[in-house]
């Protein structure tokens, strides 16, 4: 699984409440997505385009179990890489089908607006603007399969364990 897109940078300890604020917890998925980063970067949603990529620092996604990864997917972000990713947030990336990779040093390897190429199976992040390539922690094949399939619900539905949505 490979993605490529324009980079937006966020620093260390970006928490779930910044991605999906408490006030939006019980909104629809579409309305939750209108609140992404409203507290720390108001107006950011107006400048993004489908296929853009988020690059983070250490401990990205710390905090709650809320479906914050789904919000990033809903606004059209193609995927993300960060120096380290909170384990619960990573689970949500897998299970909601949002590509995410841990890669040490990735934050410093990009300026905002650079073009990134992420290969999740190989665990590499390439800065296509500067030509620098970093190797991170590949996503295990079985998890990658779930991530690429759009998360765990399609699988459970195909096995007759849950009903179709709605």
């Amino acid at each position, binding site marked *: 699984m490979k993605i490529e897109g324009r980079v937006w940078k966020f620093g260390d*300890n970006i*928490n779930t*409440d*910044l991605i999906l*604020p*408490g*006030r939006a*917890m*019980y909104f*629809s*998925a579409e309305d939750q997505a209108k609140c992404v980063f*409203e*507290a*720390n970067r108001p107006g950011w949603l107006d400048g993004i385009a489908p296929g853009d990529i988020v690059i983070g620092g*250490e*401990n990205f996604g*710390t*905090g*709650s*179990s809320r*479906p914050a*990864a789904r919000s990033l997917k809903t606004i059209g972000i193609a995927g993300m890489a960060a120096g*380290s*990713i*909170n*384990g*619960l947030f*990573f*689970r*949500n990336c897998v*299970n*909601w089908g949002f590509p995410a990779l*841990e890669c040490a040093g990735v934050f410093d390897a990009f300026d905002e607006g650079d073009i990134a190429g992420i290969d999740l199976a190989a665990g590499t992040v390439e800065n296509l603007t500067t030509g620098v390539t970093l190797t991170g922690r590949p996503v*295990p094949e*079985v*998890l990658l399969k779930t991530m690429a399939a759009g*998360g*765990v*619900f399609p699988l*459970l539905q195909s096995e*007759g*364990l*849950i*009903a179709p*949505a709605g």
Partner: protein
Amino acid sequence: MGMTAIEKILARAAVDRDAVRPGDLVVVRVDTAVLYDNNFTPGLWRDVLKVHDPDRVVVVMDHRVPSMDINSATGWKTARAFVEKFGIERHHLFGENQGISHVVVAENGYALPGTVLVCGDSHTCSAGAFNCAARGTGYPDMVYAVTKGETWFRVGETVRYEFTGAMPANVSTKDVFLFLADHYGEHAGMNVEFGGPGIASLSIDARRTLTTMGAELSAEFATFEPDEAMLDYVRARNDAPFEAQYPDADADYADIRTVDLAAMEPLVALPDAVLNNAKPAGAVTGVRLDQCFVGSCANGTIEDIATVAQVLKGRKVAKGTRFLVTPGTQRIYLEAVKAGYVETILEAGAVFTPATCGACSGAHMGVLGPDEACITASTRNFKGRMGDNSAKIYMGSPATVAASAVAGEISDPTPFLG
């Protein structure tokens, strides 16, 4: 090399191996899967057609109790229908056995030592106080665990905190957590293990405060090594057999850090983060408070409420300051009534609420307005966590919060505990 406590629990639960190492992706049998009200929210809930084993499922209502709007009331109806359809016997929906899920799990001995427990709330690591591989997962994870009886974990390295000494009277394990978060920062991708001679001086409630806050260290698992106090606590609540898992003498740790509990002091985390962001309580001066809160899965224990009552006895909450106290469960509420704590708290001018995630989750029952300042003994002080994005949320122990409520500004609790 041997294994750490959490590695041994995961190895025991693994479906295809006898040992685990950092870096492994391991599939494990789930012993207990706890669903809670947010899972049943309209628009999120996916209708489950088959449950792997109803006896391994627990259902608890906690985030929005009593129902705060039609949305939450609709989720409550879905939860009740789910419980009835699949014959889930361990349900805690409303009334005398209801409470915050992690406290309900503790109170009923659902987290057996040496077993695996998952719940779709981040503070599930709370049950690590019982030598249980407990962690928060996402909602889709929970549907997977409930329907298939399994889940997966990426095994991280383990940091061991070796406690020595005993805490001074003005210190709680909330202060110990604030010290760890301030001094050592985040533990993303890693497990923390608590052990050493100092744990003998910590009550089960005090331990659970610490493991609950493991989520705020960004730890994968936060696990206590077993001792008799822990095993007795569980046996008194659940007669099911279990095998507690002790770390091997030659376990391979990423680091072993000795912490002298006697050297701890009351700390306060400044707004927006607990990582590398604390000061001694007495050094945070001139912060006038609109609201003070003690509650949540981390600090709604009977000991926390007793501490609040001790500080408030014969005193009044400052004019212009609101003080809310929320018990972890309705049983704790009743215990606090019988012990006279609730009377003391009400006489001081504070408000006592039913058991709910409430103000901690920022959804209801104590939401902060624009530019308000709050000190909380709960789980999180992220920007916007408890209400408006411009509110300033400080975090301290129940004693520090209660003392601050009396003073109307952030205060060291020491003079109030004499």
